């Protein structure tokens, strides 16, 4: 198979690194070659963050470039629009509808663009937009928004059974938070299955 490309984008501090860790772990255990490329350091302080996850028979480049992503999993709506040009024209954008104002918006130097989901669709993108923060709250904690998003993403992998995802949560999430995260995963997965794409 050719290499598949998944991007996880969001705001520093939203838990994108745990999401990519779960995804990488699941893919490795399917027998794929996998590369996961992260950003550490300065950008983690509330800046725009991106993680590239690539898998296939043999993966070379650790990064995904413009027009190459099969799926983008976005933790925040503005970030979805920012990274849209990384999506293949036939790719899938899954985005949280949560809005987090960046500093230029807070200071009044720029406006938060309106109707971004509709605009991305008008640009030709397939977009699945959900309030994953509400789903995370329903699971019991706003901090599980990352695992709720992974639950939704999991429905894009018909070949990977649900048990494999839950096993990854068992391996990676500390025991204290495991049940909470499994609930968020299940709710996110339900949301993904219900969605008419």
């Amino acid at each position, binding site marked *: 198979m050719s290499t598949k490309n998944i991007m996880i984008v969001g705001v520093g501090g939203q838990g994108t690194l745990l999401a990519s860790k779960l995804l990488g772990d699941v893919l490795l255990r399917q027998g794929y070659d996998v590369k996961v*490329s992260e950003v*550490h350091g300065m950008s983690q302080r509330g800046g725009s963050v991106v993680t590239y996850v690539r898998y296939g028979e043999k993966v070379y480049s650790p990064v995904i470039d413009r027009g190459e992503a099969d799926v983008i999993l976005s933790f925040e709506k503005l970030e979805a629009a920012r990274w*849209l040009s990384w999506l293949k024209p036939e790719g899938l954008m899954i985005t949280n509808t949560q809005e987090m104002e960046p500093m230029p918006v807070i200071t009044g130097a*720029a406006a938060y663009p309106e109707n971004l989901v509709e605009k991305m669709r008008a640009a030709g993108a397939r977009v699945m937009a959900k309030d994953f923060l509400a789903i995370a709250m329903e699971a019991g904690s706003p901090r599980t928004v990352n695992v709720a998003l992974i639950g939704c993403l999991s429905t894009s992998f018909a070949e990977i059974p649900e048990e494999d995802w839950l096993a990854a949560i068992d391996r990676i999430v500390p025991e204290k938070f495991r049940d909470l995260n499994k609930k968020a995963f299940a709710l996110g997965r339900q949301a993904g299955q219900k969605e008419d794409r």
Partner: protein
Amino acid sequence: MKELMLGNKAVARGMYEAGVTFISSYPGTPSTEITEEAAKYSEIDCEWAPNEKVALEAAHGATLGGVRAACAMKHVGLNVAADPLFTISYQGVNAGLVICVADDPGMHSSQNEQDSRHYARAAKVPMLEPADSEEARVFTKRAFELSEKYNTPVFIRMCTRIAHSQSVVEPEEREAFPQVPYQKDPTKVMMTANSRNAHVRVEQRTKDLIALAENTELNRVEMGDTHIGVITSSTSYQYAREVFGERASVLKLGMVWPLPEQLIRDFAAKVETLYVLEELDPFIEEHCRKLGIRVHGKDVFPICGEFSQNLVRACLGFDEPQTLSVSDAIPGRPPVMCAGCPHRGVFYVLHKKKLMVYGDIGCYTLGAIAPLNAMDLNVCMGASCSGLHGFNKAMGAAGEKNSVGVIGDSTFIHSGITGITEIAYNMSNSTVIILDNSITGMTGHQQNPTTGKNLRGDPAGKVDLEALCHAVGIRRVRVVDPYDLAAVEAAVTEELAAEEPSVIISRRPCVMIRGMKHQPPIQVDSARCVGCRQCMQIGCPAISFREKKARIDPTLCIGCRVCGQMCRFSALPGREVTEA
């Protein structure tokens, strides 16, 4: 068993497998995780040194004591460690010594984009360069063997994309390294005849290493279509394979200093058009030109910034993938100081007083960003103290009364102590603010000599900053709480007015330290908020503006109440007065 492993963790794994027992480093993105991951192995004594020079000297000392040792640093850290480096190259080792240096093409988290390979050539020290995590593990082990065989320190050069990418690794068992006895050797004293002889030995060593480079497994040829040949290394190798697949032949160099000669000549002879694909400087390219080989390099690919597969495609005139976009301007999302960051109050005061601020290296460099805009410049670790001194020598009272240096606790220990000694000894009337947040923040919360804890969090020696400043000759040393804006402003005003050097220690722990107790989030009294936006002048990410009123995000606010001290209408709760 196969494992997905960060490049830096794979370096640490390689050290573990090689039987390393001592690592001394100074944190710096993108190198920090090497030492943090190594510290998870109980067999390895890992420490944070005050700076990279000390780290390298300590690691070299450990190899003299007969154990395999290492240190890790970012590219600019190697500048600090350069002094011991050049003479350790002459001195040699008693057991393997590996220096990991991580470059940051694209400057994700750095102040410059220097290319560390020049140090390998200048100090005549071999350098290996892995292209993925498995190579990072294997090359690290190989580096220790080479170090002992050729009696030299050996570099492992990482870059951000190799250091911070996870790829598949197959770990092996640790092999214990039997300690080598120390023997006094009079030729080890680096002076006159000994140094001259050592230099001759080093030149011969480089010749021997070139012979190794011609046929080592670290360098490999992957023949494909011979119309195009590519000489490459590190992450650039991955981009080459991504773009060309089998449609080119590749000479992949795992050892980038010294470089082979015959191997390159033979490869060049087999291909029609030859490219050198390397990030940053034309290091391999110039070597090829010196050999009289015609290559394309920086005439096609840029010196500045990071590469990617699309960049390589664009430079070669290949088609790039189609893309989608929205027409709206997407506001940038620069990193910001965290809600409740204790540095914020200090920068607000410096901004308000319109001072010249000589900054330094750390989270607090973010004080330069709007709306605080409270930093004029920065250079390198410690320059805020010594650079300010020179500025004030040139400007006299016009400088001294209107400028401050700003430096973090860890950066101060790293290179600020000599700077304030300069201020005290050569008597400029300078004011330095030490932002003591009890941790090394930017690189992800490492302990340092001011925190009283070692790398593993166990009790350790502790520098007393006030006593230290007094000891170098600064008489005016005072401590302020940066959450108290009035106190900060009074301290800055008084110390600038004083006719002698001074240090203000702004002391409050970083809010992100694990286990920190926070106050409950504050609430806006909407009836009192007139929408003047004064509270937004401190650039707190927890404050936004909706329906002409300030709004506090309760998931971000930690109740520092700095914003409340800005509000003239008591719509936000101000500082709680605990003293009568």
